[in-house]
């Protein structure tokens, strides 16, 4: 008789990989074979987790079609099963998984569409977090300013892509499907996703604004982020660029 820990390990393997030989001796079959009984649980696990992915990545699913999506989702579930019962976090690794998933290498824009859908999903569910007003910036002392680091709202996200992913996403999002051809060479995007007053908003940023926000979002200190953006665009209005971050409710915390 196995200990419960070993039994659960074997049960887990049977559900994720289909390999049930270690578990088989401990299951009772009767008029209904144990394999059929175990399949109920396997279908529950795969069914509910693939529903999570379907709901999170509808445009990716339309692009690759439902059958291929199920195939990719199944491979993802095996490779990266969830580690938390909070399933609104599940799928964060799916864009990265698709980027390395050989069967969709002929769709090089697909991982970026998946990233965009993930950022939109995360923006919709992210924690309600109070943000800092412009006044909190004024309270920062001169000595602290260069080394200041900004912490962004959990709904905030940035995506840069060499592909026109906003168009691709628009044409494949639920309720807006279009089969009009998209010119994949029509240029890349710098996108920002945020939630404000309960609704998720997606917009394009110009190159310097994107660079400034990305550096700060990645944790670069204010002076270094400012030097980098000024190297890119000497006319960039730093004061306005900084104050906009607070005016738009993107900053939740300051540290040095």
């Amino acid at each position: 008789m196995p200990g419960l820990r070993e039994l659960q390990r074997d049960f887990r393997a049977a559900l994720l990989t289909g390999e049930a030989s270690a578990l088989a001796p401990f299951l009772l079959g009767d008029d209904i074979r144990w394999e059929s009984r175990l399949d109920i649980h396997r279908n529950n696990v795969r069914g509910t987790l693939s529903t999570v992915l379907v709901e999170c990545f509808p445009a990716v699913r339309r692009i690759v079609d439902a059958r291929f999506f199920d195939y990719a989702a199944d491979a993802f579930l095996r490779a990266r099963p969830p580690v938390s019962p909070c399933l609104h976090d599940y799928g964060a690794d799916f864009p990265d998984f698709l980027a390395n998933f050989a069967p969709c290498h002929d769709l090089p824009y697909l991982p970026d569409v998946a990233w965009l859908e993930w950022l939109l999903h995360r923006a919709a569910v992210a924690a309600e977090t109070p943000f800092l007003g412009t006044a909190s910036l004024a309270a920062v002392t001169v000595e602290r300013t260069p080394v200041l680091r900004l912490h962004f709202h959990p709904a905030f996200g940035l995506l840069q892509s060499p592909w026109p992913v906003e168009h691709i996403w628009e044409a494949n999002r639920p309720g807006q499907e279009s089969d009009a051809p998209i010119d994949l060479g029509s240029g890349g995007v710098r996108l920002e996703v945020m939630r404000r007053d309960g609704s998720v908003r997606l917009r394009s940023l110009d190159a310097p604004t994107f660079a400034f926000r990305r550096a700060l979002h990645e944790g670069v200190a204010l002076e270094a982020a400012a030097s980098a953006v000024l190297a890119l665009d000497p006319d960039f209005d730093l004061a306005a660029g900084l104050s906009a971050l607070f005016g738009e409710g993107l900053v939740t915390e300051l540290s040095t």
Partner: protein
Amino acid sequence: MTSTMRHSAPIPARAGLGLRGPHLAEVLATRPAVAWFEVHPENYMGEGPALAALERIRRDYCLSLHGVGLSLGSAEGIDRAHLARLRRLVERLEPGLISEHLSWSVSGGIYLNDLLPLPLEEESLAIVARNVETMQEALGRRVLVENPSAYLRFRHTTIPEPEFLAALVHRTGCGLLCDVNNAYVSAVNLGGDPRAYLHALPPFAVGEIHLAGHFRTERQGRTLLIDDHGSQVSEPVWELYAEALGRFGAVPTLIEWDRELPSLDLLMREAARADGIARRALDGADRARVA
């Protein structure tokens, strides 16, 4: 009734509804006459807009938290981070009841999104009892443990499920959530008498009843019932519900519906049917006692 009174009120012994994301906005806008709501805490642990909506609903309704992710049957113990998230929600929402399942879903840190079966024997009883104690200590209160739907059995199970649950109550002081649909589904799937099952549970430990729909399928020419919470409560389960009330007395009852979620109206009609059955069953029981 003032909102302060509602805050401290326990869940009423009437039929409430499982509240799902798609209905949050309608409940907020229309404040339907529902006795109480139950939610899965895992859906609110991100502390996003859905939790803000639920907090507003909580001001006007009693609420129960019904966990699906704590994995009370895990041999590796329960996830402390998940328990801490649950505690934070309990502090914010002040639920009237908190429940979980006699099942497991975590092994090796991997979360399998299902209520998986346990062999029922001494080792698993000790493990579940320890995990229930951990949960009750962390939350500072008694929790209810629900009987799951069963599809398969282990060779080394030695303790019948009602006895296992009674022993759990005895060891931990927890209460039970009797899912009448699950009792029926398990009895059909594994062979057994669901009425005898209900009568074998310790009656005073049952603090809540669940009702839901299932669907019928076949394997190797034999019937298997799948507990999918995707349809109305079936007639045999309604009959069993009346039996359960006669045994457990007036306890809060929940209508659960997850797959192909219907309108709030249809859910409220199911709750009204449960209330009607409860009135007749308990009325009959009172008369029987007087006689």
